[in-house]
């Protein structure tokens, strides 16, 4: 086996040194009745060439020939070649968690930089070194708020990513935490009045995503004021952090958390991604996840170490702030590299590009006869009401090799025939125009009262 560095001779010598005559003897303490004596029914052994063929075949059964207008928590952005080139350095990707700081200054310094970048982006004072993903980061933020406030009630915007809400529910179910959902208005934003009446002095946290699941931007000032007035903490979730380059960060929040996949991490069918959690300095000892801190060596040189580890499971065990151990370090490194590459100007220019493209697409869609139900400003994602059945529009777009958006009826039954459309820099004007033509066709047929023709060779979704 090509991965194994011991030769048959090595094995013999080692057995001899152990005074054993066969490898079997090393397992003799295992009771026979629990020994597995069969052959596992597994693929392989395969040569590297065969492995490549297998996965190339799998990769061909994919949407790689399609233009994707899907977002909803996972964003297709161009990844500069330098990101993977650097991630692929064995010193980074084959290292363990940096417990031995003197042999891990590379990872540690990079994580310190990640923490700084996320703090700068979110307008918070400190950030941790990553959590699993946006959904668990939001959940951890809520758990942190429960601990900090010692209350047991959470108000969540209905426009928080539906799967994030599900994850939160899984984590808090056993605590009997009350979760109250606040609806959205015609602007596509949180209904402030509803929030106001939902808030009470039992409320630990208010969780609001911005841009929210519909892509619209929330007004945080009023939300924060109301939240803080009732002694609750405001948790702001961000699933598209590129927005923070041109949209004011929710500085009024107490915890800003979310998903940083947009920053150089591939969409990869949903993971691995990179959750983040940033907050105020005063809450740092209740933070979940790893933190890297600056210190000095015996000769006064600057260096970095994992710090405040007494919050963590390996020290505090059942009293830890979270059970997380392995986090998403390499993805956080990808985000760090990506953000350094784009930098202040590049990130802003890219965000402007996304905004302009999405704005253009929305305008063209309206001109084509679709309607944009929500009136508040958006970043690179917006909701469109399809002129005709959303399923049929999606199907016809598929014929054009376009994944035209997420059908919102899946998560919001009241939003039948509404699509969530995301336009990043990976979508060309030409593709937008092609999408618009499909909408035009539907709008015209609708006007003329004709049903959509069934696209050739396509079964129904």
């Amino acid at each position, binding site marked *: 086996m090509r991965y194994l560095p011991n030769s048959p001779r090595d094995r013999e010598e080692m057995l001899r040194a152990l005074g054993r005559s066969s490898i079997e003897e090393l397992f003799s303490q295992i009771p026979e009745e629990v020994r597995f004596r069969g052959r596992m029914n597994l693929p392989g052994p395969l040569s590297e060439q065969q492995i490549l063929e297998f996965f190339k075949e799998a990769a061909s059964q994919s949407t790689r020939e399609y233009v994707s207008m899907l977002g909803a928590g996972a964003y297709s952005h161009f990844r500069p070649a330098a990101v993977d080139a650097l991630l692929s350095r*064995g010193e980074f990707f084959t290292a363990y968690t940096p417990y031995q700081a003197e042999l891990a200054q590379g990872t540690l310094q990079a994580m310190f930089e990640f923490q700084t970048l996320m703090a700068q982006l979110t307008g918070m004072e400190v950030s941790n070194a990553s959590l699993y993903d946006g959904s668990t980061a939001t959940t951890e933020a809520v758990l942190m708020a429960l601990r900090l406030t010692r209350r047991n009630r959470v108000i969540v915007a209905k426009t928080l990513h539906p799967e994030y809400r599900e994850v939160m529910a899984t984590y808090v179910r056993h605590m009997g935490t009350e979760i109250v959902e606040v609806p959205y208005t015609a602007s596509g934003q949180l209904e402030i009045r509803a929030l106001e009446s939902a808030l009470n002095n039992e409320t630990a946290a208010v969780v609001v995503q911005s841009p929210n699941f519909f892509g619209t931007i929330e007004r945080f000032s009023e939300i924060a004021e109301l939240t803080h007035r009732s002694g609750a903490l405001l948790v702001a979730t961000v699933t598209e952090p590129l927005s923070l380059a041109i949209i004011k960060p929710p500085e009024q929040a107490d915890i800003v958390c979310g998903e940083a996949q947009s920053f150089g991490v591939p969409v990869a069918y949903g993971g691995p991604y990179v959750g983040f959690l940033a907050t105020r300095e005063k809450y740092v000892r209740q933070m979940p996840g790893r933190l890297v801190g600056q210190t000095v060596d015996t000769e006064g*040189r600057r260096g970095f170490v994992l710090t405040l580890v007494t919050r963590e499971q390996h020290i505090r065990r059942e009293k830890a702030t979270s059970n997380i151990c392995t986090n998403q370090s390499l993805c956080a490194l990808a985000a760090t590299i990506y953000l350094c590459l784009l930098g202040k100007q590049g990130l802003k220019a890219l965000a402007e590009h996304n905004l302009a493209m999405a704005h253009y697409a929305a305008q063209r869609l309206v001109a084509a006869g679709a309607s944009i139900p929500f009136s508040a400003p958006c970043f690179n994602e917006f909701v469109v009401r399809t002129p005709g059945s959303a399923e049929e529009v999606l199907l016809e777009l598929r014929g054009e090799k376009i994944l035209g958006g997420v059908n919102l009826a899946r998560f919001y039954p009241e939003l039948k025939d509404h699509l969530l459309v995301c336009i990043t820099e990976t979508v060309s004007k030409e593709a937008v125009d092609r999408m618009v033509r499909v909408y035009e066709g539907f709008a015209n047929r609708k006007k003329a009262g004709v049903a959509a023709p069934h696209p050739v060779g396509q079964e129904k979704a």
Partner: protein
Amino acid sequence: MKEHPRHARPHITRDENLIFERSSPGKCGVDLPTPDVPTASAADLLGSEFYRDEIAGFPEVSELEVIRHFTRLSTWNYSVDTGLYPLGSCTMKYNPRINEVVARLEGLATDHPYAPTELTQGCLRVLHDTARCLAEITGMDAVSLQPAAGAQGELSGILMIQACLADRGNPRKYILVPDSAHGTNPASVTTSGYQVRNLKSDSHGCVDLGELELAMTDEVAGLMLTNPNTLGIFEVRIREICELVHRKGGLVYMDGANMNALVGIARPADFGADVMHLNLHKTFTTPHGGGGPGSGPVAVRKFLEPYLPSPIVVKKEDGSYSLDYNRPKSIGRVRAFYGNFGMAVRALAYIAANGSEGLLQTTQDAVLNANYVMRRLQDVYDLPYNEPCMHECVLSDRRQAARGVRTMDIAKRLIDYGFHPYTTAFPLIVPGAMMIEPTESASKEELDEFIEAMRAIAEEVEEDAEFVLKAPYTTRVSRLDEAAAARKPVLRWKP
């Protein structure tokens, strides 16, 4: 300073400040095309209420500087690619290069989780096949790949126990956790809403059946067990243990972090575990990445399948794959989407590369290596539990502590010999533990070098304990002040 040890020599590295300290206004590591659509200004589109003008303090550097920055940083890291990484419990084995290639294939690396399942059959197949292989390896009946790492697998598993027992009438209050357990075990128990009851190990470092009998009351939901345990010892009475728990109406959770000792040798379902997690980033060669991403699939026996996190991947009669969300008994989601898909790709590639024979040989090598190290060091380092070990062995600093040298000091001195240290932090039942897991990825040659280094350090302790206490001597930073870091935390750069 003494002469440099044989297998390691210092060499020049470039120093490198924080990226923020390299920044200079007007530089940028990308050039973006101007969008080919009529553009209104962002400030106008967003309005002054929302528009952000700049991210204060954000770096401005060129592509070259980014390459240099992170290349330089990387050279200060030790890694599996650099050499032996015998961190106990971490299974730092070789990460095959083909895994990295296939995980980056266009299609696999680019499909969107909400793309229509008819169009993403490749990704679904990978998830399905990986789950099937893991079920085969553990003997379990069903697997979810959703948990992002081992700890989340633990939480998912405990939540399933809770849901199942609740369905049976009473979720109960406690989970038993041996005192040798990894820190995530008790932490996950708490997160799930159960309370931890610690279980004392017996004089062999194993579960004490008498203690278990006493502890396993009808308020106890189950036992969370690591097998082989964190001493690297196989629980030889595992069948009895599981039977006892079952008899008392509890369920057995197995922490599968140590599966590198068992693949092809024994299957947890066969010895009575009801639910377990696996760490793809340990046993199944997905790279540890300096602390993740990992992947912690949970595997369960048939009766727990309804409780698995939702959705699960199913294979339909026509051979195609889809996602099943209609799972009323599911504990729900533990994270968005379907798990760390990219890790499943790598794990499947690893399993397929080996096949059944290859995986068995791998386990045998891992166990052989650990026993070899244990036997060749036990005359100079204390061996608190003198049992045959599986994939790892645990020594202690007892003899050296007498001279004031602790496990962490020996670990730091090992650095000067060119090796990554072993694990020092646990198991807690061994004071001054030295937890060594060579894995199958260590050649005899490299192990001999490691053993030689360990023995040399033991001698150094005898001759000049003071010297060892100040190690390492050959790294670009000397020992770092962790206490100072925690006292007044500096967690970010500021201008």
